[in-house]
């Protein structure tokens, strides 16, 4: 093997990798934030008395779970402008990731919702809390706590999925790495460093969420 490792050109561009990572985290946080709201709303709506509402939620979830994320991203990026909706590339990508995240988080939070003991909900009602208050003060905290392990892995998946942003020329970590790769030909070094940055970030997120799990025992 005649290949000698030389990281110097990667270090020279290290700050662009880091900024790419920060951009990826930013996109993940935005998409998870919106997806989380969709998830909470959808999980409660999936318990609705109306078969139409339940059907609409089921439809949304099954469409998005059966659609490759890359196709969704390209569809939103190239398709929406054709339909007369112009979004910036960042908004378009975050939007696509958010509706994708929403579908997965509906599933995760719905499982959390099912884990809330019915008797505890009745106790809330018996005290005189309205249904909304019971959902807010009793059901939601228990649901979130019990869904935390599954949410953690969903969050990490979604963060990793931000690497697909490179496909629509958003300057995230993968995009920057590819740029360095093309400009310097230090292929192994570049992708080693980029991979380590992804892995380290995911490990840190997982550790943070696991600390949260330990802090609040399961109910």
């Amino acid at each position, binding site marked *: 093997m005649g290949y000698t490792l030389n990281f110097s050109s990667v270090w020279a561009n290290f700050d662009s990798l880091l900024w790419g990572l920060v951009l990826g985290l930013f996109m993940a946080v935005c998409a998870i934030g919106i997806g989380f709201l969709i998830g909470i709303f959808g999980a409660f709506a999936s318990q609705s008395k109306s078969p139409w509402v339940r059907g609409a939620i089921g439809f949304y979830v099954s469409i998005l779970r059966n659609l490759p994320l890359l196709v969704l991203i390209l569809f939103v990026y190239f398709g929406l402008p054709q339909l007369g909706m112009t979004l910036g590339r960042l908004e378009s990508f975050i939007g696509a990731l958010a509706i994708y995240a929403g579908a997965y988080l509906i599933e995760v939070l719905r499982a959390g919702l099912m884990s809330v003991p019915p008797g505890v909900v009745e106790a809330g*009602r018996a005290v*005189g809390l309205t249904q909304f208050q019971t959902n807010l003060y009793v059901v939601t905290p228990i649901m979130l706590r019990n869904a935390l392990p599954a949410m953690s892995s969903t969050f990490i998946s979604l963060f990793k999925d931000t690497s697909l942003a490179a496909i629509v020329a958003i300057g995230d970590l993968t995009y920057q790495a590819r740029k360095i790769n093309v400009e310097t030909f230090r292929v192994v070094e570049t992708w080693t460093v980029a991979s380590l940055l992804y892995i380290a970030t995911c490990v840190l997120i997982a550790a943070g969420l696991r600390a949260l799990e330990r802090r609040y025992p399961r109910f």
Partner: protein
Amino acid sequence: MTDTTSTALLEIDGLHKRFGDLEVLKGVDLNVAEGEVISIIGSSGSGKTTLLRCVNLLEEFQEGEIRLEGEAIGYREVNGVRKRLPDKDLSRQRSMTGMVFQSFNLFPHLTAAENIMLGLRKVRKLGKDEARAKAETWLGRVGLAERVDHHPGQLSGGQKQRVAIARALAMDPKLVLLDEITSALDPELVQEVLQTVKELAAEGATLMLVTHEMAFARDVSTRIVFMEQGLVAEQGPPEQIFGAPKHPRLAEFLGRSRT
């Protein structure tokens, strides 16, 4: 009817409750006056739990009327059509009665004090400090002053049930419903809970309780109600019910529970 009190706190008239085709309450009539302690006894499946749940509006019912302080609860007539009240009214009416469940049903994510404070703050609209003070007072009264900031997971069954009692009573309900509150407890923890109920009764709380603890019922109740197949089959003061039961099924039931 045996009831002669003119100002009943709770009036149940011709209550019918069906789960689909299964009629579980078949026309229950029962009045409860302020300060009374009513023990409901009867074999499993006779409708005792369902009756309490109807009074607390956790179940819908199809016929009859329940009035609390003269106010019809759960339903109203609109142009001759019976309509379930909107959630806001149901919640207000539920807050007038307290409920203690067999399986405690404490809010697992809240401490003992917070379990009590939630209703005080969000339903009774007390400020945080006032709610906290009231919660602490009530936990003291049920002997749990040392457990104020414990989570349910850190409490024994008997302690959990006493928190649940304090949670119900702190709301100053007109009437407290207690459904077999010692049935899920280890035998050695039963007495501490029964003792708490006895103290509440002595202080004049109006209680309606379902129990299999016959000695306790005899001791604490002003009146015993025997339910059989979805109806009140017999009722009267404890001496009469336990001393001279008239209904044949009551005599049989008491014979069985003595063993």
